[in-house]
């Protein structure tokens, strides 16, 4: 066999090398396609991924808007406070236990927390080591300053600021302001965009005005390296960093509440459970709204709520967490009588001179119905019927009026329907219409006796104190049903004010003559000898007009049983005392409702409370303090 010479050998190799060049070309082409795919086709996606690597967004929490009174007091505000955090990567190193003990002695941490910290730090690896851990929270500024002087030479400790909600009037305005708390899982879906660490209003203004008060989060972009270390600004040699957006404080809400009336309401109720509402009859502005007993919102708004405090508030039979002015409905009792009275005149079933004979008790269709005054009022016409609150008069009147007309007229005055006040969780109350009766008392027939009970505010009718205020305001202002409102304007962080317009829910057409007749009778209640409130009114200030009410919350038969067997429940089941007044009677400006739970007699227990507010209002007006 022939041996190839060098020339042939080289030619052979050269031939193959041309194939090799082709292969090389194709391989580099394929690599170019791959790179082009990564860089051009999916470049944007990879750019975003690279940003996700080195950019870390930190939320800046906004300060909550303030809640202010009309007379310049602050009901709720925020105070800057501080928290101390450690960064595990730079804290301690190997001597976890020793460093933790040292930190604990500076900060005064309990042993249990130190144990948890040591355990946490010794298991913290990777990214965990670059995530701050809060060790002390809610520190006031002076405390922070004192502690940070000791902390300067402890590595890995940082101090950052946060906010705490403060309610300067505390207990006094608790049912107005409500309180804030850590956002719950359920609330997170109700408030999209909220941080899981944020606080939201749980009740009161805090809740109903949450969206205005909350403010907008800011953002701060941190540049981090591959192990999560923060890169300081001077080292940022590259990388596009989005600008820092400062947090925007929430809008402040200005209420119409007058702090001295609010304080007067608290003082007037004293130890007694109940509620007081005072409202402007022309705008629906709430000037005071107080429910007793109250609670301290400062104790419920922190990061941690003391279990004993929570237990005390939630378990108390006097229900301090319930706003009795809007969340608790009462039998209106005799305060309800203005409605059948006015209805009687408006429908023409009685004239001011129509009189009925009250002999104490009467038989109606085989049912004995009695007046509160067992001696009877003799012949009673319209004015004395209201003034002395004669039940028998209203039995006769309701007989002529009929159930349907009475409930229709009541409906016009918003009985049994929430008023739409800007406070959370208002209750409806009950207006026992025919449909309501058929639904709730199946198999029974709606007889005259039922209507008669309704006419004197007993039976099934329930109203909140606020609904009474709205109904009386309508009588005082000529028929306008106003939506009561707490907040009269919003103020943004630049100080710009956005006023809220008063809202009229309905204008009830009333004959002026009839309205005057009612007003006149209500004046007599307070200002004439024999009126149910006469003896308890303060006659040193201009006259008010009003109506008392004493509502049985249990029947007389039940009462006798309880009196025998249960000493404790006797006081709890005493009659509720109510008074609704307009002031001044000549040209009313405000309406006040006072309800004293188990207050026994409306005139005696509730009238002086309303009068204290009238007096304060009279002497101090609405001027700034």
């Amino acid at each position: 066999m022939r041996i190839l010479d060098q020339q042939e050998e080289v030619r052979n190799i050269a031939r193959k090398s041309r194939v090799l060049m082709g292969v090389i070309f194709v391989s580099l082409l394929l690599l170019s396609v791959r790179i082009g795919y990564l860089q051009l086709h999916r470049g944007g996606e990879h750019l975003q991924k690279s940003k996700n690597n080195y950019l870390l967004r930190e939320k800046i929490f906004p300060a909550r808007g303030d809640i202010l009174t009309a007379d310049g007091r602050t009901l709720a505000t925020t105070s800057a406070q501080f928290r101390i955090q450690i960064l595990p990567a730079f804290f301690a190193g190997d001597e976890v236990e020793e460093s933790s003990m040292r930190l604990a002695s500076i900060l005064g941490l309990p042993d249990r927390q130190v144990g948890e910290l040591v355990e946490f730090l010794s298991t913290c690896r990777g990214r965990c080591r670059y995530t701050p851990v809060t060790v002390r929270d809610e520190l006031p500024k002076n405390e922070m300053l004192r502690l940070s002087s000791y902390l300067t030479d402890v590595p890995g400790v940082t101090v950052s600021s946060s906010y705490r909600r403060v309610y300067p009037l505390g207990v006094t305005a608790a049912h107005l302001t409500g309180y804030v708390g850590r956002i719950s899982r359920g609330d997170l879906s109700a408030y999209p965009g909220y941080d899981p660490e944020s606080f939201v209003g749980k009740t009161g203004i805090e809740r109903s005005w949450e969206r205005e008060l909350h403010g907008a989060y800011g953002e701060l972009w941190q540049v981090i390296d591959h192990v999560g270390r923060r890169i300081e600004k001077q080292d940022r040699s590259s990388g596009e960093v989005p600008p820092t957006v400062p947090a925007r404080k929430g809008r402040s809400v200005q209420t119409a509440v007058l702090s001295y009336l609010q304080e007067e309401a608290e003082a007037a109720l004293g130890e007694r459970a109940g509620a007081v509402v005072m409202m402007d009859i022309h705008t629906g502005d709430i000037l005071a709204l107080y429910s007793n007993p109250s609670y301290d919102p400062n104790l419920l708004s922190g990061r941690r709520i003391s279990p004993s405090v929570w237990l005390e508030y939630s378990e108390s039979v006097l229900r301090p967490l319930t706003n009795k002015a809007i969340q608790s409905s009462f039998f209106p009792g005799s305060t309800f009588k203005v409605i059948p009275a006015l209805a009687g005149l408006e429908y023409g079933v009685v004239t001011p001179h129509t009189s009925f004979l009250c002999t104490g008790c009467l038989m109606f269709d085989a049912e004995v119905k009695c007046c509160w005054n067992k001696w009877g009022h003799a012949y009673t016409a319209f004015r004395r019927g209201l003034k002395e609150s004669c039940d028998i008069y209203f039995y006769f009147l309701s007989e002529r009026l009929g159930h349907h007309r009475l409930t229709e007229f009541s409906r016009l005055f918003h009985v049994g329907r929430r008023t739409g006040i800007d406070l959370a969780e208002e209750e409806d109350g009950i207006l026992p219409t025919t449909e309501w009766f058929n639904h709730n008392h199946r198999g029974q027939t709606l007889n005259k006796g039922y209507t008669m009970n309704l006419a004197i505010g007993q039976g099934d009718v329930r109203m909140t104190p606020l609904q009474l205020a709205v109904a009386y305001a309508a009588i005082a202002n000529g028929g306008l049903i106003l939506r009561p409102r707490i907040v009269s304007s919003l103020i943004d962080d630049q100080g710009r004010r956005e006023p809220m317009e008063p809202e009229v829910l309905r204008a009830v057409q009333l004959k002026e003559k009839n309205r005057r007749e009612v007003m006149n009778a209500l004046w007599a209640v307070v200002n004439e000898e024999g009126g149910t409130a006469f003896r308890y009114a303060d006659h040193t200030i201009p006259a008010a007009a009003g109506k008392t009410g004493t509502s049985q919350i249990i029947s007389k038969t039940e009462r006798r049983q309880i009196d025998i067997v249960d000493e404790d429940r006797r006081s709890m089941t005493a009659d509720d005392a109510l008074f609704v007044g307009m002031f001044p009677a000549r040209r009313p400006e405000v309406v006040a409702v006072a309800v004293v739970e188990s207050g026994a007699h409306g005139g005696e227990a509730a009238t002086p409370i309303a009068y204290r507010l009238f007096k304060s209002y009279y002497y101090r007006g609405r001027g700034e303090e």
Partner: protein
Amino acid sequence: MKGRRIDLLMVLPLFGILSLGLVTLSSALSYNPQRLYAQLVWVALAAAAFLFVTYRPLRMWENLAVPFYLATLLLLSLVLVIGKKVGGAYRWLDLGFMNLQPSEFAKVAVILFLAARLNQKPTLQDGYKLADIVPETVAVLLTMTLIYAEPDLGTSLLIAFVALMVILSTKINTRHLIALIIITVVSTPILWKFVLADYQKRRITAVATMVFRGASDESLSSRYQTEQSVIAVGSGRMSGKGYRAGTQNIFRFIPEHHTDFVFSVYAEEFGFAGGMLLFAFYLLLFYRMLEIVPLVRDKFMALVTVGTVVVLWLQVVINIGMVTGMLPVVGIPLPFFSYGGSALLANSILVGLVHNFSINSRYR
């Protein structure tokens, strides 16, 4: 053009690649300029070696092939005994002032050895029988084994492939070639089962699954490395983020970003445009080298040229394939671009030889 002392079309792309590499390294090593200076020293050494090899008589290199091969074997053995351990493998010899990576020189040694031996072995018209090249095969296997023991599977396989290509570019008996292919196919599963270490299998399967299924639950660290590298390359887009402005690089999301993964830094900062420029340089360099094969006088030069092109080309393909997530993570640097002196020196010797052939064949 007679008597010309330099082949510009070969030297210029080389210079281009080297410059781009140094620019990229100065960005990747911005936090550690000490290492950049070390690399500059290596570049100077490599340039000196290149010139030395270019202007020495040709025959000298053929004669030196066998001693050079034996010296390399000695160094490779020494690595296993007194080598410096970095990242779980013994690949370096610590010379006090520098670290030497003998496996890089083994590439040169094997190419020279094969070319010199085959040059002296006449070929029949049918080509070599397998029996004719047993000593060469044993020599290659010996080198591979020593490198594999470090362990460095990547370089070991690279040498095998280069040796195969050099041998195949001579004339081989067809029937014998078919037999060889059958043996290879049969031995692969055995190799997988008994020879490969677990971490090597994991890396290969990890990338295989990533390529074919787009995800992998194996080998977290090499997966992370590949992911970050792909993000770096992709985020460079058309024109790159700019010099020293690659966030994947600066904030060190890419491990080994100055050695095996340096291309990801380059692609991040200079984009697709930069990548294509680099590819153009490589293509020109390879083309210019292969162009001289028909012009050379003997088989030695032809085989050294082919071996050089194959070893450089393979490293480019494997390295960039690895950086772009198409191939498993193996320790193969990008020639004339990655940080590392031994590789630079070894590659410069090889290209210097081809440059020598070029000057002697083109311009004589």
